[in-house]
């Protein structure tokens, strides 16, 4: 019970910090921003799985036909052709097709599909070619505190809070109490089932910290993605790429002589084949391994989000064929079961990412018997 109270306190604190800045933003779209047709559903889903510059909780249409967004804006931090520019995302008024232009420090910015573009000098509005690419604007380096960054911060702080509390509990007594009892077996699981068997008894201690952090980071963020808050952090290519590159750096940096020998000059095969094998092995170690890591996590989580949202969208898309009650029932049942599967996938993907990282590290530090 205590831990629930503390979690509530924590949540309340977050909300207290955040709510005063939240606004009931209004935008005046003609259609009221409702999502009804298949095309709109598709666009909505694709919009959702991308990172967004403001944290919107929900939106509704008021009596005057205006769309009201409930949520809070996030700071936009850009590295432009003229240096650092910052403003709040509320200046875009939830516009996502480039029609709202924000002027700041003499530069013009537009947001198109969750990406911020800097307009070329002299341009006053974004022009598109037939493939819907902007012709007179270019992408800028966007260090904004986006929704994903907020997710990383919140989950990171939560992890720090939980696990440092667990660490402090051990100082007083041998067995943790409360929520620590849930966390301890998980820590032991990662250490004994992932790190130790895959890396080996001799070296696993050095890497357990990294593996534990990555495991809990991915798992908790996957689970957070299933909540109505709608984080899609582990479905962002940039985040998974970052994780995969960490693993790449760790196993490349800790590879021993045997590891490099097996990559560059494979013993036991004819000398002529060795350079060919070296190319393949190098590509495998430096490209394919991290690429498979990053794409697997990204694709699984994105696919999960798309499937869940598509099944929820059955509610509107099959309204005519199945009557509103039938469509709603079908969508509820299907999305309920797929969400259960997604809870499993959330764990499985964290497990697989961590285990493959451990395996790759294990391959790099393994000591071969000389034959």
């Amino acid at each position, binding site marked *: 019970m205590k831990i629930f109270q503390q979690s509530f306190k924590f949540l309340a604190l977050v909300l207290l910090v955040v709510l005063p800045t939240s606004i009931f933003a209004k935008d005046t779209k003609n259609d009221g921003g409702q999502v009804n047709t298949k095309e709109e559903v598709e666009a909505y889903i694709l919009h959702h799985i*991308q*990172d967004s510059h403001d944290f919107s909780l929900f939106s509704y249409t008021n009596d005057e036909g205006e769309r009201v967004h409930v949520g809070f804006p996030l700071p936009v931090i850009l*590295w432009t052709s003229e240096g650092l520019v910052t403003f709040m995302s509320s200046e875009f008024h939830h516009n996502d097709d480039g029609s709202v232009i924000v002027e700041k420090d003499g530069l013009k910015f537009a947001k198109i599909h969750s*990406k911020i573009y800097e307009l070329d000098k002299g341009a006053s509005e974004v022009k598109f070619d037939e493939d819907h690419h902007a012709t007179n604007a270019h992408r800028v*380096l*966007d*260090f*904004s*505190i*986006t929704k*994903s*960054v907020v997710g*990383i*911060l919140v989950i*990171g702080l939560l*992890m*720090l809070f939980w*696990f*440092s509390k*667990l*660490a*402090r509990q*051990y*100082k007083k007594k*041998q067995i943790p109490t409360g929520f620590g009892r849930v966390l*301890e077996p998980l*820590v*032991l699981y990662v*250490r004994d089932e992932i790190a130790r068997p895959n890396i080996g008894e001799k070296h696993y*201690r050095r890497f*357990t*910290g*990294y593996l*534990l*952090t990555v495991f809990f*980071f991915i798992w908790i963020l996957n689970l957070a993605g299933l909540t109505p808050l709608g984080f899609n952090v582990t479905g*962002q*290519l*940039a*985040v998974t*790429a*970052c*994780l995969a*590159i*960490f693993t790449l750096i760790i196993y490349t940096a800790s590879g021993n002589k045997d590891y490099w020998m097996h990559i560059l000059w494979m013993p036991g095969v004819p000398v002529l084949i060795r350079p060919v094998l070296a190319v393949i092995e190098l590509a495998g170690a430096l490209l394919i391994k991290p690429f498979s890591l990053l794409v697997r996590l990204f694709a699984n989580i994105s696919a999960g989000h798309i499937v869940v949202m598509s099944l929820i969208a059955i509610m509107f898309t099959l309204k005519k064929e199945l009557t509103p009650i039938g469509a709603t029932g079908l969508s509820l049942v299907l999305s309920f079961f797929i969400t259960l599967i997604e809870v499993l996938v959330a764990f499985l993907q964290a497990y697989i990412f961590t285990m493959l990282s451990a395996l790759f590290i294990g391959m790099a530090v393994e000591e071969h018997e000389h034959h």
Partner: protein
Amino acid sequence: MDKLLNDFSPGLFVVSTILLLALIALMVKFAWKPILNSLNEREEGIQSALDAAENAKKEMENLQADNQKLLQEARLERETMLKEARGLKAKIIADAEEEAQAQASKMIAQAQAAIDSEKKAAMAELKSHVAGLSIDIAEKVVGKELSNKGSQEKLVEEMLGEATLN
């Protein structure tokens, strides 16, 4: 692939790299190190406690075996002592019997010797008495019968024969 690259946001990549590095460093310092150390300590504690219990059990077993051995030895000793005592008893009895026998036979022999010497003394006394008597008788007989020479000799012979009979 184009779309994938278009979705990739370098800014988010940089920000998440920085945040993750910080998170890993902080977690390792404030959470994983103390947690893993405490877990290791606890496991080692449990292991050593188990080892100690095992050792204590072994020691107990040894002790019990020792006790058993001691008991066995004590029993054996008692047995041998009893046996010895029994032997001693028999020997003492036998000795006593033997001694008694010897004593008895000695006493009998002494008694016999005493009887013999008494008898001899008595005999000697008797002889001397008989000789005295016979002298008396002879005096008397001689006094009366010395006139008859033949009967005299006959008497002497008779007397001598009788005397040698003893």
